[in-house]
Every structure is written in structure tokens, then in C-alpha cells.
């Protein structure tokens, strides 16, 4: 083989350890190397940067949707618990709860109607928890590393994955709303309100998607990620306005509920469900009707999404960077 390059001579001697990021002087002599690809006559080398951001996004979106479809058990399974909650709570607590509701802001409605928006948010939480599990699965199976070696935009990779998860959340909330309607719940704001509830569901899911990914990156362990998400999910649901109005709960829960993100998601969804200003943790009267609930709720959720999303993006960036840690 006569094609050995003399390039090696230009390199530093091995004993010279350089500081991070310090490029060796004159090391990249690329006059001949730049044509490297032509020599092997590979057709792909002509269009090295063939991938667009949108293309990368789409590849990953397709992959994660495909994986979701391949695991119908997970898609269906994550719906089972909210459905059980919906059916059991309305049957078991329906009688008592109706009394509690009529004492609160939302008088004169059935418990089904009161509970359904909360269940929609629960679905959103459960689906969001799957995000970190998918990531940690990829990490454990070496697929995370494999995708890092691929010439894809890292942001497009994560966005494509998250978009697939959001699609799943949309489908699942739609199923739950339809089911709730069948069970006797009533969306007072109609079809537009139902779309609104789904949008609230997306906004509400993002902070938990972020949190679940934070668990994944920090623990890098599937069980820890699942436990972490579940451990938060249920207590948080109960110490919020999800199952009963604020006024029906003891003082300390009222305090906790004020700082509980779930309260804001549930209240926003419930405002759309009942066409009423239902928020009691923060009294806003500047707007009219349901906007007195929607505006503060959306503001809180957005702030939370940005904050946790920022941490998640930072951690994901660090996890996918090549810097030696």
C-alpha cells in the first residue's frame, strides 16, 4: 500500500498534553484530505450535508411513533389507570363529591363533568412520564450513543421524539374526553373547548416531559425514572384541585395546592369544561369569565415549562456533548 500519508509527522508529540479546546498548531493540513471522499467513489459523499433540520426531525418523529405503535400495551396501558380513576371515582365518590362540588365554585354539575378535565390532565402526566423512559431505554441499549454518532441535529432529534409524545398525548386526551362524554360528562364550551382542553393538556405535559427526561439523564436507569415519575404523579394529583374543589380540603392541602402545577393544569381544563372561572388558588378578576382562570394558569404553566425545559435541555446537551466529563 503506497498511500500512506506523511501527515502524522505534523502531529504533536504524544507527551504534550494540551489544554481542552486548544487546537494543535498546523495539525489540520487538509489540502489533499479535503478530497478524501472522492477517492473512494462513494455516491453519498457528494451530498454530505443532505440532511435538513426538518428531515432530522421527521426521521425521529417517525421512529418514536413507530415504537409507540409497536407497543400498544404501553399506549393502552397508560390509559387504563385514568379510565379506572374516572369510572371508580365517579361511582364510589360520586354521591359525596357532588355535595362538595355544589359548595364550591362549580355548583350544579355532575361529578363526571367535574372530574373529567382532571383525568385528562392525568392522562397527559402519564404519557409525559413515558418520555424519560424512552430516553433511558435508548441509553441502556446503546441507541442513544448510536444516534449521537449519526449526523443529525441534536435539537431535531429531541424535538422529533417530543413531538411524537405530544401526538400520543393528543390522541389519549381525545379518547378520554370522548369516553367521559359517553359516561355523561358535558363540555360546556363545546368542540372548541375540547380542543382547548387538549391544548392545555399539551402545555401541561411539557413540564413533566422535561422532568421525566431530567430523571432519565440524571439516573440513567429505567426503574428509577419510572419510580421517580410515579412517585411524584400520584401525591401531586391528590394535593391539587383535581379530585375535589379547594374549599373541601384541609388548610394545609390548600396551601400545597396553590404551589402545585397540577392545580393550574386542572383548573384551566376545568374552566373550559364548565365555561366558568374555577380558579380559587389565585384570584384574578382583570379578565372576563374563564379567562380569569386561563390566563394565570397558562402563565404559570408556561413559566414552569420554560424553567424545567431549560434544565432538561441543559442536561440533554451535556449528556450528548462529547466533552470528557
Amino acid at each position, binding site marked *: 500500500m503506497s498511500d500512506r500519508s506523511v501527515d502524522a509527522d505534523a502531529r504533536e508529540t504524544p507527551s504534550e498534553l494540551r489544554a481542552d479546546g486548544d*487546537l494543535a498548531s498546523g495539525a489540520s493540513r487538509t489540502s489533499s484530505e479535503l478530497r478524501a471522499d472522492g477517492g473512494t467513489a462513494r455516491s453519498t459523499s457528494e451530498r454530505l450535508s443532505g440532511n435538513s433540520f426538518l428531515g432530522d426531525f421527521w426521521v425521529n418523529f417517525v421512529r418514536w411513533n413507530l415504537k409507540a405503535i409497536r407497543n400498544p400495551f404501553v399506549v393502552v396501558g397508560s390509559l387504563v389507570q385514568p379510565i379506572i380513576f374516572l369510572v371508580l371515582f365517579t361511582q364510589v365518590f360520586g354521591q359525596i363529591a357532588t355535595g362538595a362540588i355544589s359548595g364550591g365554585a362549580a355548583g350544579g354539575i355532575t361529578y363526571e363533568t367535574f372530574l373529567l378535565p382532571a383525568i385528562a390532565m392525568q392522562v397527559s402526566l402519564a404519557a409525559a412520564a413515558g418520555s424519560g423512559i424512552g430516553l433511558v431505554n435508548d441509553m441502556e441499549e446503546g441507541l442513544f450513543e448510536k444516534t449521537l454518532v449519526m449526523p443529525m441535529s441534536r435539537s431535531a432529534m429531541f424535538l422529533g421524539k417530543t413531538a411524537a409524545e405530544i401526538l400520543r398525548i393528543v390522541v389519549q386526551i381525545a379518547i378520554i374526553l370522548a369516553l367521559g362524554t359517553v359516561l355523561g360528562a358535558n363540555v360546556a364550551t363545546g368542540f372548541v373547548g375540547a380542543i382547548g382542553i387538549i391544548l392545555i393538556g399539551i402545555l401541561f405535559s411539557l413540564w413533566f416531559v422535561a422532568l421525566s427526561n431530567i430523571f432519565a439523564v440524571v439516573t440513567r436507569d429505567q426503574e428509577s425514572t419510572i419510580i421517580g415519575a410515579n412517585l411524584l404523579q400520584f401525591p401531586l394529583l391528590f394535593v391539587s384541585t383535581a379530585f375535589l374543589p379547594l374549599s373541601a380540603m384541609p388548610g394545609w392541602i390548600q396551601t400545597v395546592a396553590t404551589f402545585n402545577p397540577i392545580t393550574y393544569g386542572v383548573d384551566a381544563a376545568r374552566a373550559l369544561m364548565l365555561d366558568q372561572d374555577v380558579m380559587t388558588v389565585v384570584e384574578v378578576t382583570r379578565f372576563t369569565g374563564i379567562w380569569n382562570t386561563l390566563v394565570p394558569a397558562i402563565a404559570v404553566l408556561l413559566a414552569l415549562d420554560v424553567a424545567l425545559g431549560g434544565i432538561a435541555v441543559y442536561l440533554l446537551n451535556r449528556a450528548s456533548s462529547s466533552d470528557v466529563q
Partner: protein
Amino acid sequence: MELTYADGTEAVKGIDLTVPEGEFFGFLGPNGAGKTTTIKTFATLLSPTGGAITVNGFDVREESRRVRETIGYMAQETSVDEEMTARENIRFAARAYGVPKDERADRIDELLDLVDLADVGDKRAGEFSGGMKKRLDAATALVHSPPLVFLDEPTTGLDPKARNRLWEYFERINERGTTLFLTTQYLEEADQLCDRISVILDGDIVATGSPMELKRRVGGEILDVEVAAAGDASDTAGDIADPRERAAEIARTGDVFDADADVSVTDDGISVTAERARQHGTDLLVTLRDAGITVTGFNIRAPTLDDVFLAITGEELDSEAQSADPEDVTGSEVTAE
């Protein structure tokens, strides 16, 4: 038209190497020697803390995406998506590497054929055996026909049959003109596949050469001879020295082997490393018998990785540099104890 594919990194202690186009290059070393760290640095998964690395003409730090576009990488751990079929796994990689739509279907079929998975192409990878998953993994690393492919311990954990099969694919890929950079802890694997090998130990390259050259370091074949202990050797003339010592003496001074044969005393006999131990082994056995030493067993074997290391590192420790080619020993100046 000539080009450099890879160059040195200081990922561990200081490595300086160049792999020319089309070569099947091997990185041989025990666990923890720094093989994976090095290959990950080449594949842009780790950023070098010093030095410069050029892969396919691109700097791994400054032009990492370019590097990624022009290499294939197969991690030590088999990485296939078990929820997707073989075809879908390859399709995902093809899309991720930007293989044009009109070429994609043909490329996928071609690769499924190459790794003999065409008949199970639409089965989920989760149902595959370890060897099949590994082959699928290899196929996904080739979707964009990269001129350079990194293989990190590709056959670790495979049974011999699956391993041999994988070797065939690698050879086939290499014959198509693809440069392969392999890490392994098996001398046999490096021997079978590689044009050139670097032996890495504790983050340093301690030797570089063709498999033949490296084995010559060890000095050919190894003959282990077991001799009976002094106590039960009834026909031993006299009760002077340990028969092992005597046997070693005979092997050293006799006419059987060349002077450069390496003879050492082991627990139950002697071990002779010599160029033509296989041919001359019987002569030694006869000579020993004539000298009244009872041979209870013998074995002729090819040098193992252990032997190569012993030869290479032993030379350094004994500071007998006479047979160590200084050109091959790079980075030794930073071997801090």
C-alpha cells in the same frame, strides 16, 4: 489521491497513528487499555483533551458533523432497536444519514443481503439472536457507504460460528475498499482480519506492525514441556538438580534451537519460545529422554495475546531493547510509572 484517514489523539496518554485508506487496521489490547476511549474519540463521541485528530480529512472537534457523515460506527454494545424490524432499523439509519429516497430501498435490500438477514428483514430485531443483532448493527453502520468504519470489539460475546460469520462480512466490506478500524482483545481476531495492528496498553501504543511482525516479536511458536518431578523419576541418573532446570539447560545449550530461543522454567516443566518450535519440538523431546528426563506431557501452541504482551512489555521492563524496533514503539516516553 492519497489521504490520511485517522490521526493521533491524546485521549488516554498519547497516541500517534495514521491509518491509510483501504486498510484493515486493528487496535489490540486488554480490557481497560483505552481502546474504546480512543475509538469513541475518533467517532466524535468524546472530545480529545489534547492533540489533533483528522478523520477523513475533517477535524473531529471543529467539523464533527462532517466526520459523522463520513464514518460508520459500531459500538461494543449491540445497538439495534428491538421494537423495530431489521428493515426499519436500517431504514431509520438510512434516513438519518441522508441516503436519498430513490436509493434507499435498494440500499436496504443490498445491506440485508450482505449480512444475510434478507429472509428475516421484516421480523422485529428483538427476536434475533446475538449474532444476528450484531450483523444488523453492522448493516446500519454501512447505510451511507462510509469510506471508514469503526468497529469496537465487534465479536465480544459471540459464539465461534457467529464470530466467523461476522469476520466474513468485515472482510467483504474491506474488499469493497472500505477502511476498517477494529478494536479487539483477541489476538486471533486481529491476526485473521487485520493488515496492521497497534498494541495498546494503559493508554499507550506499545507496538505497531503487521500480525506477522508482532508475532515475530514473540519469536514464533511456544513449546510447553512437562517433566516428571525429581522424586518419582526412577530412571533419573543421579539426584543432582531439579529436572526442570536440567531440561531448561538442555533446551538452551543443545543444538535443537537457535540461540535466540527463549527458555523459561514453569511450574511443572519448561516453556520454549522459538521460531520453529513445531518442527524441532520432537528433537527436544528425544534429547530430553536421552538425558534421562521423563517427559510427561507437551503442547505446542501459537503465541497468545498474553505472549505478545509478555514479549513487548517484558522487553521494556528488562530494558533489553535489542529487538524492540524503536520506530514501532511510540509514546513510550510518557509511560510514567
